[in-house]
């Protein structure tokens, strides 16, 4: 009992609730990042469309991914560029 007292008195490190809290925080971050397939597909479509305005891209090879690590999560987009669409200016409304 005395040993336990000193252990508690001098350090909080091995309190199991701190482990629980830390695990929960990470679990919830992951939970909140969970996106349905539908949303990912819609995002995929939209991004291909937007990027295609500026670059000629290989639409087949376009990759969209959510990557998670302990510290942070990231949306990783990877696409081969075939060429830039330099000559095209902003789309003008048809004067007719």
């Amino acid at each position, binding site marked *: *009992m005395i040993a336990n*007292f000193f252990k*508690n*008195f001098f350090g*909080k490190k091995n*309190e*199991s*609730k*701190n482990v*629980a*809290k830390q*695990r*929960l*925080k990470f*679990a*919830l971050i992951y*939970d*909140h990042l969970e996106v349905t397939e539908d949303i990912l597909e819609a995002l995929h479509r939209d991004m291909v469309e937007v990027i295609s305005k500026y670059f000629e891209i290989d639409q087949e090879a376009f990759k969209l991914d959510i990557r998670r690590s302990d510290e942070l999560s990231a949306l990783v987009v990877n696409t081969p560029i075939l060429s830039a669409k330099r000559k095209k200016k902003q789309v003008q409304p048809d004067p007719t």
Partner: protein
Amino acid sequence: MDGKIIVVTSGKGGVGKTTATASIGAALALEGKKVAVVDMDIGLRNLDVVMGLENRIVFNIVDAVKGRCKLKQAAIKDRRIDNLFLIPASQSDNKNALDPEEMVRFSSMLRRHFDFVFMDCPAGIERGFENSVAAADEALVICTPEVASVRDADRVIGLLYARSITPKLVVNRIVPALVERGDMLSHVDMVDVLSIELIGLVEMDDQVVVSTNTGVPLVMQNTSKAGAAFRRIAMRLNGHVDLPIQVPEASGGLFRKFRSKFGRSR
């Protein structure tokens, strides 16, 4: 009357939703409000046994919603506590017997007859949950200080926010000695993780088992710490919003008191 519909939910099962519903409902009725507690767990009813009213069921919520009986016939009056009514679940139907639209219609009728209506939500986030929250004005999320319960609570809180309901947290089954030792999440930890407003802290209490064994409402037992905590939650719901939230403390021996002098206890 323009009553409030309050859903009692948790996500995870077995954390004390039904006990909380029965206790808070009974406490509000003791305060003089007209209260209905509704068992939304269609097919697995148990609010009736917890309240000791299982022998008096004739009609149930499905009958009332489908118009097979009048509201008055489905609402069982508690003979020990004035103004307390139970609307039991159906035992033979399945969860799809009701849908959210029907519940919204039924709830507007409940609002006219009662000051407070508590929906005892089944575990899970399927149809039973949808039906329970369909017409809710407010929500109580019951959560025990365990990782599984907190995680499920977070999920449910997200679903409630998506329906523009701002839930309040009841931390149930706190063991103060474990919290003090650092082996149980404290309510501070839980509020921190869930970012939600607290409405009550309920200590682990053997009296809950006794109460459900006998079917005598917990809040009628003066010695019950959990009962007292549920009564305070009821008072907060009844407009006493400033009533301070009491943090359960381990009944202290000399040693613990000595330790708390050194600032180790919360």
